[in-house]
């Protein structure tokens, strides 16, 4: 083949390269640039090497936020994945109720994230909120603005309300794709309901569960708007997660260097976790 043709090929991919460069690579490089310099103003900056990274990694406030973040994401997965599967199994398989159920499930996903926070801020208020008043009238002393446990509880319930639908919809699509013959064969083989779930439904859902877990992990690890609106990260810093710490650092204190270093570490953590999840689930298939 002619060399000239290869050069043409480079030219053909150039638009994509440019778009990716503008949208992803250049902003990312800017962050990398900030993370290794101390910037006082235009034309006044010093190279500081890994100084900011060391500072960020030693910062006890960020350790706290990271631990809370991991606990939050773990809780989200532990609650939402099984709950999503269970609810998907309860959904009608055909008939007019399918569309009703699908529309109802899609509703929380359509609400803008800061609106979700506002809804729950009002809904859970112990003085005028429906949920808050109801819980207090049951005899629990509930106040999410004052008690860290109540705050965590509210943030988690809010997230379950907001995002479990996504897991349900994915699982529902996965379940619908299982041919009837599998259920019929299982009946003939005398399988129990549990065996049908364990040996037919769960294995067939593996693909969509991989996507559900990845999406829920990534979204929950980046969570910002809802807890920020609901609790503002409080009481104290009990519901301050990584992205809120980052925003405070970058926009509030204008510490661009440490914030950039922190962003990169944050990004790498998500990338690493996602990759590990992906590999684990893929490998579950290969054993035996």
């Amino acid at each position, binding site marked *: 083949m002619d060399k000239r043709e290869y050069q043409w090929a480079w030219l053909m991919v150039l638009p994509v390269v440019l778009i990716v460069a503008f949208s992803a690579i250049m902003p990312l490089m800017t962050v990398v640039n900030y993370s290794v310099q101390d910037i006082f103003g235009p034309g006044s900056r010093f190279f500081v090497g890994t100084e900011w990274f060391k500072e960020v990694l030693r910062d006890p406030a960020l350790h706290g936020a990271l631990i809370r973040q991991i606990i939050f994401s773990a809780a989200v997965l532990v609650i939402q994945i099984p709950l999503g599967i269970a609810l998907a199994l309860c959904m009608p398989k055909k008939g007019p109720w399918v569309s009703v159920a699908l529309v109802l499930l899609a509703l929380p996903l359509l609400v803008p994230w800061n609106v979700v926070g506002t809804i729950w801020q009002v809904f859970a208020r112990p003085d005028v909120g429906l949920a808050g008043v109801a819980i207090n009238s049951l005899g629990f002393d509930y106040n999410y603005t004052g008690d860290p446990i109540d705050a965590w509880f509210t943030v988690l319930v809010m997230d379950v309300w907001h995002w479990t639908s996504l897991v349900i919809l994915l699982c529902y699509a996965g379940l619908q794709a299982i041919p009837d*013959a599998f259920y019929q*064969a299982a009946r*003939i083989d*005398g399988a129990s309901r549990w065996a049908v779930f364990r*040996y037919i439904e769960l*294995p*067939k859902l593996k693909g969509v569960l991989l996507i559900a877990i990845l999406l829920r992990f990534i979204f929950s690890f980046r969570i910002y708007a809802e807890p920020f609106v609901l609790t503002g990260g409080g009481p104290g810093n009990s519901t301050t997660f990584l992205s809120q710490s980052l925003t405070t650092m970058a926009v509030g204190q204008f510490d661009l260097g440490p914030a950039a270093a922190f962003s990169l570490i944050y990004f790498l953590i998500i990338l690493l976790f996602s990759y590990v999840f992906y590999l684990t689930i893929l490998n579950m298939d290969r054993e035996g």
Partner: protein
Amino acid sequence: MARIELNNLAHQYAPGGEYALQPMQHVWEDGGAYALLGPSGCGKTTLLNIISGLLTPSQGQVLFGDQDVTRLPPEQRNIGQVFQFPVIYDTMSVFDNLAFPLRNRRLSEDYVSRRVTQIAGMLGLDEVLKRRAKNLTADAKQKISLGRGLVREDVAAVLFDEPLTVIDPHLKWQLRRKLREVHEQLNLTLVYVTHDQTEALTFADKVVVMLAGQVLQVGTPQALFERPEHTFVGYFIGSPGMNFMDCQVEGSEAIVAGERIAVDPAMAAAASESGGQLQLGIRPGLIRPAAADEAGLMIQVDQVEDLGDYELITGHLGEHKIHVRLEESEKIGSDGLKVVFPTEHSLLYADDRLVGGGA
């Protein structure tokens, strides 16, 4: 093992709606190999699902031996079923797949392992028992589905719903032979649904031909070929199908396009009495060329196809299109092909049904 009796059985999917299955009365003998043959949508899968219990008929009874199983769910019926696509449990090994129906019935692990090994040996799966079922080829997977049906000793019948659809042509033949072997060894009642006449005719002792929810004929492959009881059976079985020509009957002769053809006198008499729309039917391969000095019918030849070991002549007799199978083409003269319709193979049909036939 059991005899299967369909007692006044019929099915409508919606009350008052169209019959997916017309009322029928049949007995299928214990240990027989039956094929349900018919075009798509003729109700053969509906009938199969009624026998397996996946569907409850809207009318009539299904008896296994003396037991009325009409209302019993599949798991209480002791049947095995093999579906169009291989159904295997992805996460299990081949051994666990075969053991699954036995373990669900809480049989001892000792017995399970003996029985699974035996069935695996019979199906040629012993080499792969420890492998994950998911990673095997389609035909091996279909053997596993079959094995799950066979593994239970109390199984009354094994039902097949077009089980060779996804199998490669050269393996179809092997798998079909395997089925015959299994049938001979275990003496099970087998019911096999297909729309492929070759599969039905090579597999079954008795073929049940269905059309539009109706059983048209139950018979041996030979009977279906030689004495089809319905014009559809004649047309559907054989390649090409039987020739049918509108006719009148006078005495013991049928008149087709002005030509007189001798038929069986008793059949001719019954045909004139029936008063229905009459047709003369004859197999393309059973028409023979006339000898040089013999009286015969002149067929105008339109097309000759050489199909290797025989030639297929497409022609017409009057306005009737007709197929003839010939061993050699030399008999075709310039003015057409002179043939004889042997009396014993010339059958009369009144309103699509064989005159004097069983039904």
